[in-house]
């Protein structure tokens, strides 16, 4: 009797989350897996076409390859660098007086708080001769004519990467700052007795192992943001960017799925499934690495 009641309670407590999770996560993922095997123009009924979409994605879609390359650049370079940067910054901030620390934390986190404020970069890099960087460089005599920062494929990626770094002080950074304050000072003392010679050894052997949960959280956030770069790139470089120079997988999905152009939801789902798998694999690798560090 008691066991049954307990089970009912458990189910009751789990129900709200489970229902929402199924409705908004499981069902969309399953339906996009199903749709990825079809040809679906969003208005007429989808036709089943087997693995044709996957074949097309890997062998017949050059733009997909560009998008994959760019996504990997963000995931493997911008993401980890931003992640490391925000950890180091949090570590440095930890040394300051709490008030100063709060101010700096606010300053570094403000780009995220401000939402779509990355639009400011389109002004800074405006291609007009009166754009901020162009006009400064031209006044200094470095340039004689304005650089088309946002449409010349030579510069687009550079600008987008810069903006992504600027945005990288995200939720992960806050978790690091918070985590640093819960470190056990006794361990540092013990470490000093055991022969830790400098701050970096302290960081590596004492601080990081204590921070594993925060680091994991930060990693998940960082991976999902860097794989999901899309809107930022679109806001800065336009859609599509010249020669797809800043095209990412997310933008590729949007291009086929929701932009008023292709309306090929089946193919968009294929790319989405691919992106999902990619993120899953990366996350499990990071997870494994950090867990090993924690032990």
């Amino acid at each position: 009797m008691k066991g049954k009641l307990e089970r009912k309670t458990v189910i009751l407590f789990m129900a709200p989350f489970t229902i929402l999770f199924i409705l908004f996560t499981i069902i969309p993922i399953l339906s996009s897996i199903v749709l990825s095997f079809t040809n679906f123009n969003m208005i007429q009924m989808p036709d089943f076409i087997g693995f044709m979409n996957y074949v097309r994605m890997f062998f017949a879609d050059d733009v997909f390859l560009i998008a994959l390359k760019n996504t990997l650049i963000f995931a493997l370079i911008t993401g980890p660098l931003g992640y490391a940067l925000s950890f180091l910054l949090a570590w440095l901030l930890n040394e300051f007086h709490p008030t100063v620390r709060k101010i700096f934390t606010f300053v570094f986190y403000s780009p995220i708080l401000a939402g779509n404020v990355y639009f400011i970069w389109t002004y800074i890099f405006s291609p007009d001769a009166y754009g901020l960087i162009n006009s400064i460089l031209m006044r200094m005599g470095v340039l004689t004519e304005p650089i088309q920062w946002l449409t010349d494929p030579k510069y687009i990626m550079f600008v987008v990467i810069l903006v992504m770094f600027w945005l990288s002080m995200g939720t992960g950074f806050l978790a690091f700052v918070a985590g640093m304050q819960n470190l056990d000072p006794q361990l540092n003392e013990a470490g000093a007795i055991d022969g830790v010679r400098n701050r970096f050894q302290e960081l590596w052997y004492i601080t990081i192992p204590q921070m594993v949960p925060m680091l994991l959280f930060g990693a998940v956030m960082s991976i999902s943001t860097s794989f999901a770069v899309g809107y930022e790139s679109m806001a800065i470089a336009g859609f599509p960017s010249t020669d797809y120079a800043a095209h990412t997988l997310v933008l590729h999905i949007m291009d086929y799925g929701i932009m008023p152009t292709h309306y090929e939801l089946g193919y968009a789902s294929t790319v989405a499934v691919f992106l999902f798998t990619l993120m899953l694999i990366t996350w499990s690798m990071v997870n494994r690495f950090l867990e090993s560090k924690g032990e």
Partner: protein
Amino acid sequence: MTVQNSAGDDMHREYTFLNRSRRTLCMILAVILLISATACGSESNSVIEAAPPLDPLLLSEVVDHSKSYAEIYRGYSAPQAKAPIVVDFTDELEPDELHDHRVVLLEDLDAEAIVEFEVPTSGLYQASLEYLMPEGRSQAARLELEINGERPFTEADQLEFPRMFAFVGEADLPSGERYPFQRDGGDNEIRPDTEEIAIPLKKTLQNAYGIYGKPYLFELEAGDHELTLRLKREQIGLMNLTFEPVPDRASAAAQNPEVLEGVDPIMIQAESLHRISDLTIFPTRDNASVDVMPSDPESIRLNTMGLNTWKYAGQTATWRFSVEAPGWYQVSFRARQDVTRGMNSGRILRIDGEIPFKEAELVRFPFANDWQLLTLGDGNGEAAAIYLEGGEHTISLEATTEEISDVLRELQRAITELNGWYREIIMVTGSNPDADRQVVDAERDYNLDQKIPGLIEGFESLKDRLELLQNRIDEIGGTGNAANFISEVTYQLEMFIDKPYRIPTRLSQFSGNISSLASLMSELREQPLELDYLLFTPYGQSPKAPKSGFFEQMNFRLQGLISSFSIDYSALGTTAEETTAWTGEPLRVWVSVADLSGTANTGVFSGRDQAEVLRTLVDNRFTPVTNVPVAVSLVPDSAVLVQATMAGMGPDVAVFVGQVTPAQLAMRGALTDLSQFATWEEDTKSFYPSAITPFRYEGGVYAMPETQSYDMMFYRKDIFENLGLELPDTWDEFYALLPELQQVGMQAGIYQSDQTFASLLYQRDGSFYNEGLTKTTFDTAEALDAFRQWTGLYVNYSLPLSFDFFNRFRTGEMPVGIVRFTNANYLSAGAPELDGLWDFVPVPGIPQEDGTIDRSVTADSTAGILLADSKYQEEGYEFLRWWTGADAQIEFAASLEQIMGPSARYPTANREAFETIAWTTEQSQNLQQQWADVIAIPPVPGNYQIQRNLNFAFRSVVYQQTNPRETLNRYNNDINEVISRKRLEFGLTVEGGN
């Protein structure tokens, strides 16, 4: 145990803390409540101070040799006239009969009425015209006046004579009753239909733009004269023109009013208008307070008038009321002027058409954030008294810029001079920082002060005058923007005078400052005023505004908040018309805001305003005739149609759908082929084929065109005249013009869009696709040639790649540009200082063998579509047919322009409706000539790739100097792959050799 104990302590401490803080909180709240309650209880009730006499502001000592009124006025020497002179047109000329009156009709442009008249004694006269308006485009008529075959001053060709309108059915109402506004399905009051009142009108001749606040004065010598009135716009029936002495009115303080006892005040609801001179004046609403009468927390009540719509000089609103007890009254207004910070809004007050005393010549409504009850003063701080006989009366208020007109005039002159100096400077330094930045070198001294004679003196005089202007604005009471803009310019001029070598490096700021002054001028010109009601209080009583308590107000706001959760703001309401014949749901019509505001307006107004006009039109013209109720909703853009259709939630009909969407939907079988309806052929005969082509797909036609906007070549008349430049007719002439412009630091502007390529290709008789529309033809010689010309414009002729046309055109830096003709709307709304200084002509083209010039250009269009899923196919088509037909389009275009002004001029695709749009004759001819050359590219599956790849190809050639032929080929192959893939997807045949 100890642990628990301390936790208990903590809890206790926390509890007392909570208790204490709760008490503090309560007290604070109570104080706030009290303060706000008292603040609510007292609405300021003050007497309008009379305007302090200001010296006439004629700062410009430099006579500019123009024959502007300011200069002519300065030369007047005759004494004030004593007696009026009436010049009756109907006596002297052959009269016509119009609405039972004898008038002399001027119907055609430049039609004239010439009469002789005699002046007994020399003197200064003002003039007023009595006239009757024939039906027309509901615009004001414009006349040019000449005396003895000569315009007395340059502005005498812009005399405007308004019409008079009233709400339908207003005349039948008992006086003093609020107009019964119609309500829609949601119990919301809707804007009433108006009609023109054909009665003789009288208008004193004055400046239509408010540059001179007082009526024009004419110096007439004794003897015989000849008067000519020439028609410049619309039509007019002339009755008589009176030259009269300037009236010298006594002050209200000179009267001896008697106290009137035992009489109730008379209240007139301001929204219940009797007559309006301009359709832009209409009832508005303020649902934020229970004190605005009448009020309703949930539904819309039209309870005010004038909000943001009654602000230009000359616009007049009239109310009627009846007086039971004759006697002395004082007049108060519940008014709000929260727009022009620190400035007053001027009005001329008339009772029964006459200005009663001096103080009524200029009633100043001061800036205030909230509603105020203002009583007209007598100049001594007391309320002015007006004697009213028993019976019917009217009261009217006319907007006037009198207080600020000196400032406006001097500001306009300063802007013209500043722009002149700016152009002289860039002729030396080059303005075009895009191409010549190395020339504008901070280190190099151009000796501008020596190269441009008079520059420093000019700047000094401008600086002094601007400082005086600023003082004047301070004197009037203005703060904020006005002072800042002006002081920024004076500061900069001061620096230029001190250090002329710094001028070249500050050019862009300088031109920015000039633009700010220009926008300041259009801001100062505005005299906005919102009225809730007018109140005649018997003399001796103090005027009182009914006032609600704090809780009443809170309750009202709370109800409003609660109802806001259930109101669908995207729905504009359903026609309330209860029709017995109709049993189904109303026809659902979606209006796409983005496409609407993109094409049909200027960005000055949100799409919502236009959609409201459309709704009113449907209510008044469609539903009553067809008995089909219509529910109009706003959607953000037409792309949501695809998603909505997928979800089965789509509308029956969508209007203002962007050009590409109909084909996108049609390819997927979501739209009805309109050409299958019996009357389609007939219904589309007033469209050019180019309006329909974008919606043809595989033999069907899937949309009815509404608007088409295409490129015209805009140019600055003044600059072309100054530099002696010719307008280019062909591309060769255009290329010849470029170096001449570049020599003086100016540039031409063409947007780098792929549409330019399309235009150039069609000018060469090329085309986008092969016959079967299965493949592009970008591999032809014409296409390569067009591509070379397109990229060459930027590579070889250094046209700027990105620019803001409006700003550069305004400063004169870009005196010529090929842009959509709808830019004229921006210019007329946003650049009043350029009035009459710009125009547009057809774009340059390529000469053909037969001697004609091919000026093909592309167009943007919007259209109405009928969804295939809709249950109401016949009704839906009927709606589209009605909506894109000439009658509805004419009325829609006219209403937009009446309500929002010329900046909302509508680019209709209907040729019959176009005839009625108020372009000047010359502009209309130019537009029509270009329109005939508009080309349209049929939609093909996958055509989005063309735009994409053409832009990529363009950038590759322009940025990286790749070979045009190879680049175009490479991207073209990709385009054709996509087209083939898409054709397969839609089950169409594919070109074999691909």
